[in-house]
């Protein structure tokens, strides 16, 4: 059985200008979104409290608001999680010292208003000091991951491939960022973990193609690089589609039935795996090619 015919020969490299421009456009959009809307930071990174409550009888946000009104919570938002009026997420700001005081008051207020019909499923309260620390660590983690990946590939392949892989992974991180902002997915620790996995996968996928380019360069010296790259992409295409396909299937399973706690995590990975696959083909290879061509033209000038 073959999903991708083995003698497939698509001209990926020839259309690179179109895809590079499209990707650049999407990335630019992501950057604009990041600077204007910004991430919908979860409490891990922004500080604050979320209280998740389940009600036996369907209730309205207004009724919940009424129940906690006397507490005058700062920046209170009430979100219907399951879209069936039974599971709600309350989010608000709390004081820095003893972050538990506010949510204790909320629990008590809800218990008073709804008696036994309300169940508190989950509470997360993070003070500003802790969230600041987590933000810093998260930033460092992504930076280090990107750096190490670039170094590793430079060490194993050539610097051109390293630069190509890093640009491809920055592209992927930006695409994921854009989707997270557009969908207003709360950016928290698990989403960051997913993002780092995307970084790993993006490079993983780029390496498979680069490895084939490396091998083919040794085999066929005379042909020009763009042909070698195009051939390598075509040769690995079947593997690329199948691996990404199986990974996407399990991720979609996770997204659909894994429950709402894991959903942002799964979404991040789904988007990341799609763009990671795309960027290995349309971004990493053209970057390698670009450096090759600019180097040869320099040599000609000299």
């Amino acid at each position, binding site marked *: 059985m073959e999903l991708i015919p083995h003698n497939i020969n698509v001209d990926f490299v020839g259309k690179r200008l179109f895809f590079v421009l499209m990707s650049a456009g999407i990335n630019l959009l992501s950057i604009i979104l990041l600077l204007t809307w910004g991430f919908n930071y979860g409490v891990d990174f922004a500080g604050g409290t979320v209280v998740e409550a389940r009600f036996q009888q369907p209730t309205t946000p207004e009724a919940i608001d009424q129940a906690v009104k006397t507490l005058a919570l700062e920046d209170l938002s009430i979100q219907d999680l399951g879209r069936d009026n039974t599971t709600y997420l309350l989010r608000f700001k709390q004081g820095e010292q003893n972050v538990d005081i506010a949510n204790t008051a909320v629990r008590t207020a809800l218990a008073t208003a709804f008696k036994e019909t309300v169940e508190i499923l*989950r509470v997360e309260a993070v003070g500003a000091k802790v969230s600041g620390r987590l933000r810093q660590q998260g930033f460092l*983690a992504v930076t280090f*991951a990107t750096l190490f990946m670039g170094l590793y590939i430079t060490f194993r392949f050539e610097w051109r491939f390293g630069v190509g892989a890093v640009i491809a992974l920055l592209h992927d991180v930006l695409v994921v960022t854009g989707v997270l902002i557009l969908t207003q997915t709360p950016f928290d620790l698990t989403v960051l973990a997913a993002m780092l996995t995307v970084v790993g996968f993006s490079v993983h996928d780029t*390496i*498979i193609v680069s490895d*084939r380019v490396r091998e083919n360069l040794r085999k066929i010296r005379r042909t020009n690089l763009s042909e070698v790259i195009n051939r390598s992409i075509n040769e690995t295409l079947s593997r690329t589609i199948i691996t990404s396909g*199986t990974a996407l299937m399990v991720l979609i399973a996770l997204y*659909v039935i894994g429950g709402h*706690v894991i959903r942002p995590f799964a979404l991040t990975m789904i988007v990341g795996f799609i763009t990671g696959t795309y960027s290995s083909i349309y971004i990493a290879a053209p970057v390698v090619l670009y450096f090759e061509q600019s180097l040869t033209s320099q040599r000609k000038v000299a």
Partner: protein
Amino acid sequence: MAKGILYRALLVLVLTVGALIYLVPTIVGTLPEWWTTLLLPSRKISLGLDLRGGAHLLLSIDMDAAIEKALDQNTDELSRVLREEKVAGATVVRVEKTLRVRTVNPEAKLGAEKVLSDQFSHLTTEKAPTPAEGEIARILSDKELIRIHDYAVDQSLETIRNRVDQFGVAEAVVQRQGGQDILVQVPGIQDNKQLEELKKLIKTLAVLEFRLVAEGEKSGETIILQGQEREPLSGKMQRIPYTLEKKVLMTGDLVQDARLRPSSDLEGPYVELVLNDRGARQFEKITGDNVGRRLAIILDKTVYSAPNIRERIGGGRASITGNFDIAEARSLAIVLRAGALPAPVTIVEERTVGPSLGQDSIRQGMLSFILGGSFVIVFMLIYYKMAGLLADAAVVLNMFLLMAALAAFGATLTLPGIAGMVLTIGMAVDANVLIAERMREELRLGKSVRAVVESGYERALPAILDSNITTFLSGLILFQFGSGPVKGFAVALCLGIITTVFTAVFCTRLVYDYLLARRSLTTLSV
């Protein structure tokens, strides 16, 4: 060749048996006695708080308060020693973080300086403000500040651990995190009320003091502290001020034990204190000297009760009555038994998961694990036939080894951890896909079966190794920077990569080599 196969098969067998042994504690609820006497592993995969439900609290110690306290103690201590050493005309005052000794003549200044250098070497002039004429200025040395810091952290850790242990929940974790934070993880919190009890238990400073209630002129310096009393009719708590002598007669460090006493017809539950020998003697003297006066029992600046001393009390027993219910009295007994915190602590992070959400997460996580896994297995079988079957066997062995590795490391399985395992299944087949695609390519070149297998594996290997190493790197970075559930994900991801390379490359190759050696492999089905 055949020998090599034997050794490799033995390695796989040993690892599989080893994995089975490591998995036994996780699968079997209680281990038989001979298991532990044979020194077989007893660690098991434990569920994280996000799956079993529970409270995760990060506490920050108020270091400023600890330093304040140390400065106050040093001021009192220095005054006392100067008095004892008969250094006349020297008074100690504390101005912010500086201890200033004001002297009336050069002789007194010399005497005070001698006392300071002999007995208070932890006070220094370095970085201290310039003293006025006839004055000595000292501040706490950096070394002393570090000592105070360490003492506050160690003592808080010890005290909170004692208190949490007595809360009566198995497998609670109390550990230091970073410089001055303490992490408390308590699984299986059932409801709001239990959670509140726990938080109160942890946060109570539990400084116990005994002071006399002031009586007119003779009492000297006084302070006013609030007391609590329940109004008999409405049952509301009322605050009533007490005027007390400033002098503290006795503190809680002399308490040896504190017990909860159930309520009787006459009064509600109360806490009985058992004092140590020194405390017993001191308490006897205090009560003997002050018959007829009122002795206030103060916990954390709140007056609990102020009974009349009717007679000298020997035997070292005192009781704290107040208007509390049985749960409050129980908490009070625990904090008094465990001792006071050296400095106040505040909760800077709280994460609690109720038992039902944890159950939901386990169910949903497992369901997606099974569904996603089945899909991959069926797909591989259909698409790559025999090579797919081998890959599937490798995936099953992979999951088995991964579980065993998690158990061997005593790792905690979190919801992101389950997601990490699901992802591992999805990615594990990548190595087999790479190899199978290679084999197909080589087959098309018309090579022999043996050559196809050999070059298929060899050519795919660099790509497999390089790509897995980078994912492993990102897992390591996640582990370094992540916390809690994220760490669980990183552990699953990293261990998963190791077991993947082993099962998907090493084990499947072994099967091919075995079949080739027996010459039973004449056609390849990929």
